[in-house]
């Protein structure tokens, strides 16, 4: 055969055989309940997806060990979208069409979640998102729910605290990432309601390593009383360090995007006095025994840390809540029928999770209120509740 003929037949065989080989599904118990997930385990959002993946794996194993759900085992089918919304969409389609999952828990980032929303709505599969932006559940979409607090709630919690400290002139400094931009937009929107005046609005690039320029401008803004950094990733750490370097003697608020022990470790003593809204998970041991969330957060923290030997994170906590909501819904509905599960999720009341107490409704597909956020401050290098 000539080269061109070989290459042509190759061309014909290659796609078909490759596809067949790839999708030979692993043999599994026919009656397993399939939990689908697409998470950003690698790539720029890896510190969201990595604890989420680990949490799902850990708890599905635990649930199966305790007998499963409705007498059936759970099977996790998860894909890594590397923070790419297009890939997330393709994987969501794969979960729905190829793997035929019963429910999806995933979407580490807002971009990935929003890309998948049209698919789950069309295919009518219940989907619990693990991303933060308020746009995911506003306007409410029938099949889409979410567990993390919205960025708008974070703004409101911060502004409430600022009101208590009589701070009204605020400077914003945020990055160009999706989380940053979304939260900044929400803060600008709700600021007037809390009588907060935004006197400066600086931005930095996602990979920037020096914010002294922007902070200098803020420092020199007339009348500024406090600074809020809606940020995520490495930016807030550098902002905090530069803040100390420039001796900007103003209260600094961060966002729940950096609610972690990592943040304190990376910022060093520059983090002393920084405040942010966070889920109770971060101060698990410090909660009074009477706190409704104490048992859940301490349990999750111990289970995660003993298995993975790494610090627990609020993002992993969101995945825990997502999985439990879905599992509880299935138990209440008594079936895995997608419509029934969806209805059951929507009527969740009083579910105590790591993020707060969840009360969903037809108009509220997140179910958390401001009390789910705790205002925390770094005191002596440790996150402590603000009294």
């Amino acid at each position, binding site marked *: 055969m000539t080269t061109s003929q070989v290459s042509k037949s190759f061309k014909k065989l290659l796609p078909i055989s490759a596809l067949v080989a790839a999708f030979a599904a692993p043999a599994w118990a026919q009656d397993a309940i399939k939990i689908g997930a697409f998470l950003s385990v*690698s790539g*720029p959002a*890896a*510190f969201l997806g*990595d604890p989420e993946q680990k949490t799902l794996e850990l708890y599905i194993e635990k649930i199966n060990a305790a007998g499963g759900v409705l007498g059936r085992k759970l099977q996790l089918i998860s894909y890594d979208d590397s923070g790419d919304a297009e890939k997330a969409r393709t994987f969501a389609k794969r979960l729905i069409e190829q793997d035929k999952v019963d429910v999806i828990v995933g979407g580490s980032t807002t971009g990935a979640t929003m890309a998948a929303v049209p698919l789950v709505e069309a295919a009518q599969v219940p989907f619990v998102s693990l991303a933060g932006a308020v746009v995911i559940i506003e306007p409410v979409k029938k099949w889409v729910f979410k567990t993390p607090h919205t960025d708008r709630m974070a703004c409101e919690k911060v502004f409430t605290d600022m009101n208590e400290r009589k701070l009204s002139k605020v400077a914003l400094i945020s990055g*160009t990432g999706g989380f940053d931009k979304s939260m900044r937009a929400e803060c600008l929107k709700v600021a007037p309601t809390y009588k907060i005046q935004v006197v400066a609005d*600086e*931005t*930095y*690039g996602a*990979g*920037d*390593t*020096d914010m*002294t*320029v*922007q902070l*200098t*401008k803020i420092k*020199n803004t007339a009348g500024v009383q406090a600074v809020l950094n809606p940020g995520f*990733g*490495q930016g807030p*750490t*550098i902002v905090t*360090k530069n803040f*100390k*370097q*420039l*001796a900007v003697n103003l209260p600094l608020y961060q966002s729940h995007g950096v609610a972690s022990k*990592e943040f304190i*470790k*990376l910022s*060093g*003593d*520059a983090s002393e006095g920084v405040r942010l809204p966070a889920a109770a998970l971060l101060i698990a041991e410090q909660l009074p025994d009477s706190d409704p969330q104490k048992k859940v957060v301490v349990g999750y923290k111990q289970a995660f840390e003993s298995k993975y030997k790494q610090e627990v994170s609020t993002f992993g906590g969101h995945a825990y809540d997502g999985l439990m909501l879905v599992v509880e819904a299935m138990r209440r509905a008594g079936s895995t029928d997608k419509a029934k599960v969806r209805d059951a999720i929507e009527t969740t009341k009083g579910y105590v999770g790591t993020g707060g107490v969840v009360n969903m409704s037809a108009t509220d597909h997140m179910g958390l209120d401001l009390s789910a956020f705790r205002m925390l401050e770094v005191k002596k290098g440790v996150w402590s509740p603000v009294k």
Partner: protein
Amino acid sequence: MNAQLTQFLLSGLTIGAIYALVALGFAIIYNASHVINFAQGEFVMIGGMATVSLLQFGLPLLLAIPLAVLAAVAAGMALERFAIEPARGASSVTLIIITIGASILLRGLATLVWDKKLHTVPSFSGDTPIQIGGATLLPQSLWVMGITLVIVLLLGWFFGRTLIGKAVLATSHNPVAAQLCGINVRFVLFLSFGLSAGLGAVAGILIAPITLTSWDVGVMLGLKGFAAAILGGLGSGVGAVVGGLVLGIAESMGAGYLSSAYKDAIAFVIILAVLFFMPSGLFGKKSADRV
């Protein structure tokens, strides 16, 4: 206002010094082999991340730093030996793609050897800011600028006064003639890659206490270092340093006085402007093609 200007200048100089080191790395490799090493940024990353792990193993900083630099030098030499050497004589397009592939490979390896989180390295001499004319400077910035200066001087001495250095220069002017003079061109290439990698690693370690380090810190730094090298004129050591400093200050001033949102774009707009109007950069030689 003056204090603000001083602040912008100081932060521009700090980051500019890092760009200068990275740009020098590009210049040295380009001079020796006419290869644009897109993996240069990854050496910066290796320097920082290796230091982090070595510190985690309990080694003191003074020991961790040279070992981390050595790790990067080894990586640089491996790159030359396994990726560049086999493709000698290939077109520049091919070589560019090879180094891009190598940089992706190195980043992938970094996520396996280390992790995907952010890490910090302790500052060499503490964090107490120094007051200069109403602006503040971190002691680490002084280290950055100081060590960069020392390195630039050392390189000047190396290339100008030592035999090996002159051999490297000779190879960059005309490899065939250099070979005829008895210079082991292959060794020169090997050395150049190792040297550039070492420079990149030093830059990475110097800047890590200020900016944190992680597996993908090399991407933007590499691209901006390259922009600085082009600005200064590819192949010119002086150009690389000047280009780096100018770029750092331009970014700082641009972010301060124009728009902080478009700060990253400044480097690339500069690249385009230089390439369109002044392709040989500030100090580069005008090249003429033999027909």
